[in-house]
């Protein structure tokens, strides 16, 4: 056991020496790579290149910066709000939780102290892992893209609804609530949807007009018309400055990203040396500890809302699936019985002819159900984010089938596609709602039976 470990150590040392040599050879490139990496990060989160270098040596003074860096980056990706002044404890726990969520399983990281006072090297590793596994830079660039166009989301993921909070100014706590108040609120809500709809329609009309009226003006041949922002620029050129600054800083970021992509290899090699250093310092025994600890960990009894939500969904789904299974079992049994009866009766008559049709039927059923199984496979890339709305009349589309268009084709989505996707989504939500209502009806019918002398006639 001991011998083996020593051997491994020696092997690692050898490897390390090799890498060190490599490292020294490419050394001039490393600062450039780290610098490019830092500049490719969003301005508000941008670390000093020195932070990374210090982190390599696990300097405690870098750890606070690093927690903050990860906190800010991950918050941006997860669309959460954050401020510079968020408490360090919250930052640490958030980062740990998100890393866990994405499957980063280094126990050393989870064991870092909550005051953020240590662990810069662990954080450097986690950061590097995120860089690749989440496509951190790409995601951040895409998310923070400067909007010059009129955008519409193409994403069919639903937003998390804000959890409702009971305002403090509510009717006195002991007061009971009139059910009509709920009805009234509900009516208002429906009305609000109506007016939102109307507002959307009006907005569409305005957008379309602006797009139509400015068609042919834009120098970008893929767009050919202005967006609201751009039109406004012409009208009020003095507003241009801010947008220009944003665009320019984004361009710099993109150029830094390109530079980083060219120097990437050096960085990853450098990261390997970091891993080596850690191994050298005897984290081996720690990982063994981790194994022990893992076994020792008690069953989780957490009341985290996320976990609750997920397990709730699982419970519900399994209940639904079981109910469906039962229903199917019944129906299949019935159908089978009926089928055998009939077949027995007509056996002589149809044997020959039926074999042929049976095969056909089998094929068609297979085809029908294939759609279902393909759904279960990892779903095809769904569209996410938002796209710039571009008016392209069908005639123009065919005319503009040029190279430029083809180049962009990868990213272009047509409204028809989005509409189709939305329709699917709508149908499934509608079904879900209907199902919930059916369930309510069932339960309320049960209650109505208990109403003495009153019969409930559903509408």
């Amino acid at each position, binding site marked *: 056991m001991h011998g083996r470990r020593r051997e491994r150590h020696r092997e690692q040392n050898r490897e390390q020496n090799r890498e060190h040599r490599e490292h020294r050879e490419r050394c001039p490139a490393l600062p450039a790579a780290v610098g490019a990496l830092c500049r490719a990060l969003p301005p508000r989160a941008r670390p000093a290149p020195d932070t990374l270098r210090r982190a390599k040596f696990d300097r405690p003074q870098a750890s606070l910066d690093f927690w903050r860096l990860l906190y800010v980056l991950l918050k941006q990706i997860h669309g959460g709000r954050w401020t510079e002044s968020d408490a360090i404890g919250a930052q*640490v726990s958030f980062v740990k939780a998100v890393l866990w969520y994405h499957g980063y399983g280094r126990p050393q990281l989870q064991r870092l102290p909550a005051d953020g006072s240590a662990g810069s090297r662990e954080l450097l590793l986690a950061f590097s892992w995120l860089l690749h596994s989440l496509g951190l830079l790409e995601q951040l660039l895409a998310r923070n893209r400067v909007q010059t166009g009129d955008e519409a989301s193409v994403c069919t993921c639903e937003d998390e609804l804000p959890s409702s909070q009971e305002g403090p100014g509510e009717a006195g706590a002991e007061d009971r609530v009139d059910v009509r108040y709920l009805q009234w609120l509900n009516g208002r809500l429906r009305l609000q949807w109506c007016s939102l709809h109307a507002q959307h329609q*009006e907005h569409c009309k305005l957008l379309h007009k602006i797009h139509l009226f400015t068609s042919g003006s834009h120098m970008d041949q893929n767009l050919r018309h202005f967006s609201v922002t751009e039109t406004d620029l012409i009208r009020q050129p003095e507003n241009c400055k801010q947008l220009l600054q944003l665009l320019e800083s984004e361009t710099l970021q993109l150029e830094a990203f390109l530079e980083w992509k060219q120097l990437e290899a050096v960085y990853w090699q450098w990261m390997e040396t970091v891993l080596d250093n850690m191994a050298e310092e005897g984290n081996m025994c720690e990982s063994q500890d981790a194994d022990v600890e893992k076994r020792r960990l008690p069953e989780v009894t957490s009341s985290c809302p996320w976990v609750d939500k997920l397990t709730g969904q699982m419970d519900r789904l*399994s209940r639904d699936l*079981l109910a469906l299974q039962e229903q199917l079992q019944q129906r299949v049994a019935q159908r089978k019985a009926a089928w055998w009866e009939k077949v027995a009766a007509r056996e002589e008559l149809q044997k020959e002819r039926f074999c042929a049709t049976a095969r056909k039927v089998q094929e068609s059923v297979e085809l029908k159900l294939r759609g279902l199984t393909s759904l279960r496979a990892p779903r095809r890339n769904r569209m996410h984010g938002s796209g710039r709305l571009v008016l392209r009349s069908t005639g123009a589309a065919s005319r503009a089938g040029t190279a430029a268009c083809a180049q962009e084709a990868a990213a272009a989505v047509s409204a028809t596609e989005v509409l189709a996707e939305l329709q699917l989504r709508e149908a499934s939500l509608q079904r879900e709602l209907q199902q919930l209502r059916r369930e309510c009806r069932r339960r309320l019918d049960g209650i109505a039976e208990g109403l003495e002398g009153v019969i409930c006639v559903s509408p």
Partner: protein
Amino acid sequence: MQSTGGSSSSLPCAVSAGLKAVLPGLPGLTPARDGPASGCGARAEPRGSGFSGLSTAKAGRNKPREGRAPRARGIPGTVPPAPGKHSDHRDPPARHPSDRGAAGPRGQPERLRPGAAPAARGTRPARRSWQGRSERGAGAGAGGRSGGAAAGLMLPAGCGRRAAAALRTALGEGAERRRELERRAARSRALLWRWDDEEEEQPQPGSSTEHEDRPSPKELEELELLNRALEKALKVRKSILKTPLEAQGATGKKWAGEAHAPKKAEEQQVPVPVQDIHECRKVRAGSKKPLLLKKPSPYLLRAPYRTDPDMKKLQQKVPARCVSQGPRIAGKITSKGMTSKQGRSHRTATGASAREVCAAAEPWETPGLSESAPNEQQSFSGGGSTVGKNSIADGKQLLDAGKKSCGFLGESSKKEDTAGPWERSISLGPGTLQEKGCQLKLPLSYRKAYSRNSRAWQRCRLYQTSADAAAARTRFMERIQTTFCSPKLSLSPAEIEEELRGLQDVFSHLRQYVEAEPVDPPTLQGEYESLLTLEGLQSTVSQCLQKLQLLRAALESQLRLCPDCIGDVGSCSPACVPARGQTCDSADMLAVPLLYYSSLQELRDLFALKLQVSMLHQEIAIQKVMMAELLPVLEPRPFLEGSAGLFRAIHTQLCEGGRHFPVLVRDELLD
């Protein structure tokens, strides 16, 4: 034993003869769709009575009243009070007066409790007779029930508040969206309007009037005033042929001033009407006084019942509103009218005069046409002189233009035909986007920055990682992953979430398939097919169940590794972060996404459907909350007789989304 207020005694359990419809279904009560005129006629009065009901309720709250409530007409807890004070209903039913009337029920529920007003509002003659019977019945047999009925409409504090909070959150969210949308629309509108009046009006952030959750006493008072105004307006309406403009102006104004009056703006808004009318008259009388009115309010001239208070507000902010608002005026102004209105706008000098045009165009739908034309002309010249930056010649031209458009009022199809000095200056001078849109050029600095930026995006997207770098990266990733304590290949929580979502999708399709399967296929072949399908579905279901088990196990093992601070994951669990493995590859992420649409209709469909989806999403969330909160209220048995009303209300809410009502029938044959 007796009712404690309002109309609570009407709980209709007490019908004497045989099977009687106790609670008639009243579909469509909320946004009623009957014609405007008849709707008003029928409702003005009942609304008044609603208020008297309200006051009794107030009184009743202080000292429990003896005897039955005087006006027991409504059915407590049955008529979902339609939303009140809802500003911009632009959809046809919502614009309808009946909804505005719903301001009545906006009565503060606490005050109403044990609620009178909302119920009283829905009164209709047909029901009144029935109600009469019910009252008699109540006297005869079930007098004691009414008190219980009032109590029966109350929900226990905890669940009621949670349910209300869910709804209120949804409302707040919607209000937020509306403001945002309004802000954007205002910006676009400003662009489509003339470009030379920008110093005058900048689009402001959308209406900030929060709909509070409960009406203030002040608002209730206003409502009462409003009701009176409405009654007056009805009278005036009859005499509209005599003096259409004045009458409408006055009532419309009153309406607008009182009906809406957001809390903050109130002080400044209430006095406005008088002044406005004043000014308006002056102008009509031919005064040369420049139009100083910042809000000459187009709604001034609109028939009172079509006034949309919120619309009014918006117009105050952005004159260009008129253009887009056209179709919302209940289709009164034809599209022809709209285009020509737009055309006309070129000639107007300022936003103020433009507004006046809109205002003047309104009477088109009223009999006051003959008067509106001079009015318009006045405003044109007025507008010209106000601005003062136009030369006299321009002013003349304005006047001519005004005349022309007066002519246009007569023949609506007349199109824009003048060129004049307006169109000469293309990118600097005034004009509309429509005229000069295709000759516009973006500022050079922007063009430079833009193309540099898009070139950079393009290069990033097309960049291929070198094999060298990819190898180094993979080596690092593999090495670091060997130090993970989670078992290899186990799913990360993010992946579990995604997989679960997929399973849910499959399930909903499965159910759809099952439902689509015919119960009794006609042919032998069909029967066979159905059998096979069902069997196939069966096996898919069991596969899903297995998969679900795996996910459960994966989640459990992940939870064992999770940080103790897991509470935070809830807040970070991302709705829209594509999970690992699902992400389009990084190059795709960097592509500039373009969303092509081919026509206005398509754009509209797109937004409508998106809205529909998010509405359903919200509805489902609310439904779940309601189910969790409201069902347990009813479930304990034996069921109290008095809670029939509650039952009905909850039934409506849970099963029909508040749209329809079940009918409760008292089965007296049992006796």
